[in-house]
């Protein structure tokens, strides 16, 4: 689909399992993400989507299995090598995770300062450009406490993009945004993916967004404790046979009635 030169795998997960204490979230999760594609991790609430994302960015080690990101396992990286590797990814947190004592522009300048020797003027120029791209050009000098939740999320994306990373991880980018902003965000993600070859790993359960931007997706499920579907979102919508997957894409209750999904 879509992206050119899409054969190189930038993320490979093999047999990944994760649980907290006795509670198993998922097991035997395997997938690859290719350069330049928009890869969507979807599933209902509480199925471990965000946890999987945290494994991918190396915050926790998986209970079992291997995760290779840009050719290296997080566990094997330490010190300067880990730092250099971290520079190549960007993460947008679910709530934005902006530092409250810094303005939006300063928040975006932070990773640039951490990883490059660019002077302040350059950092600010980059920050303004990134904020402008997410539609926050006129809010650059405001504090996070003075803006709305959706704006914080967009500022979080601007910060994640600050270093032009090869992979951008987005945790629920469009949840809580109005449809217009959300569509604008989808367009931005698509244009970045197509023009710069940036790879996107997006955790979401917004159906419209999944269908609009997703090249490929995997779907996690709480009951199956693992992946129940993998493939192109539109194809899944049209041809999936798994009842939960069908229910998810058609926004209906799964056959047999009870549990709400999504």
């Amino acid at each position, binding site marked *: 689909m879509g992206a050119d030169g899409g054969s190189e795998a930038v993320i490979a997960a093999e047999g990944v399992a994760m649980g907290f204490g006795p509670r198993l979230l998922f097991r035997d999760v395997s997938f690859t993400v290719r350069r330049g594609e928009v890869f969507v991790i979807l599933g209902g609430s509480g199925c471990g989507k965000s946890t999987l994302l945290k494994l991918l960015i190396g915050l926790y080690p998986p209970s079992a299995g291997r995760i290779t990101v840009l050719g290296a396992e997080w566990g094997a990286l330490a010190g300067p090598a880990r730092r250099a590797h971290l520079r190549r990814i960007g993460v947008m947190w679910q709530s934005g995770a902006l530092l409250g004592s810094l303005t939006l522009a300063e928040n975006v300048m932070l990773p640039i300062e951490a990883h490059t020797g*660019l002077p302040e003027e350059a950092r600010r120029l980059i920050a303004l450009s990134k904020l402008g791209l997410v539609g926050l050009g006129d809010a650059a000098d405001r504090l996070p406490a003075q803006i709305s939740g959706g704006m914080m999320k967009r500022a979080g994306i601007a910060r994640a993009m600050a270093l032009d990373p090869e992979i951008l991880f987005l945790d629920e980018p469009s949840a809580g945004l109005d449809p217009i902003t959300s569509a604008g965000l989808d367009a931005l993600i698509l244009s970045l993916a197509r023009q710069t070859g940036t790879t996107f790993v997006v955790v979401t359960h917004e159906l419209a967004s999944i269908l609009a931007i997703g090249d490929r997706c995997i779907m996690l499920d709480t009951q199956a404790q693992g992946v129940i579907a993998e493939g192109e979102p539109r194809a899944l919508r049209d041809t999936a046979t798994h009842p939960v997957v069908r229910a998810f894409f058609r926004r209906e209750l799964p056959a047999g009635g009870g549990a709400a999904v999504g």
Partner: protein
Amino acid sequence: MSAAPFRAEVTGGRLRLTFTGPLRAEQAAALWRAAHRARRGASALVLDAAEVTALDSAGAALLVSLAEEGAEWIEPRAETPRAALARFRQGLGASRAAPPRKSFRPISAVGGAVLGALAQWREKLAFLGETTLAGLALLARPWALRWTEVQRHLDEAGTRAVPLCVLLGTLVGVILAFQSSIPMRKFGAEIFIPQLVGISLTRELGPLLGAVILAGRTGSAYAAELGTMRVNEEVNALRVMGLDPVAWLVLPRVVAAMLVMPVIALVMSLTGLIGMAIVMTMLGFPPPAVIAQLAQWMELGDVAGGLGKAAAFGLAVGYIGCHAGLSAGNGPRAVGDAATAAVVGGIIALVVLDGIFAVLFFRLGW
């Protein structure tokens, strides 16, 4: 770092800056100063980026900053850097509206500050009124209070503070006894150390130190907890559900603080007396002598006055902690500020209250 892919030459009175090869963050950082130095002073600029092969935001920032005062652009020939530059400009175009400058208006600044202070006092008064009304309503219907919540706070503010109180109380008793033994020995009056320490502990230090512990441990916790609830809109949620946040959140905490404080004060005083008795034993006065001295000189009134004071301190600390939490602003910083305000405000209130009590007790001859 790669060699600088950058050339400056003057042709026909115009400065021509030529960039070649990749222009990424490393190159931009290395070139930034040199490029800007070369640009300085030149009136007309040609910015030649035709041979730039790769461009990231930092490289685009360098080019755009050089062209800030006007330049003739030669765009990158390759598709990818041209798109990167276009995207950078697009983002910046949306940002270029400069932030409005704040003008200096002394009169409105002073007026604003005064009005802000007045509004704050008004808010404080309103909170005091709300709490008082809710408290009075509680007197009429004590079963309406959430007693399970009170129990939780009693446990957190009281039971868990006991080890700390025992430690501090004993040490304070030991220190007081030792320090007073030095001048008392000069007069051969060491036998009077028990009443000195006993009276100062039960009437003054037990309640005061206990309340300082309460302010540090519990007042700040109230402020942080309620502040976080306010930031998370839980307080608004309560209000919209028709529940009074004061009755629901503040009263259980204040009542718990008020109930727990006499106990803390008593623990402090008793352990202080034990510490003092240990020192006295070391000085050669056996415990029976110490107990006899205490029994002869101390009255129930001393203890009761101290405990009454302690209850008032607890009320003040709990109230100030809750108020700091509920009036917190937005964001994580506000919660920290609220906790600080609770501790500082609590301790100031304690000292002021203690002064009032000292004058009151003196006038009343207690």
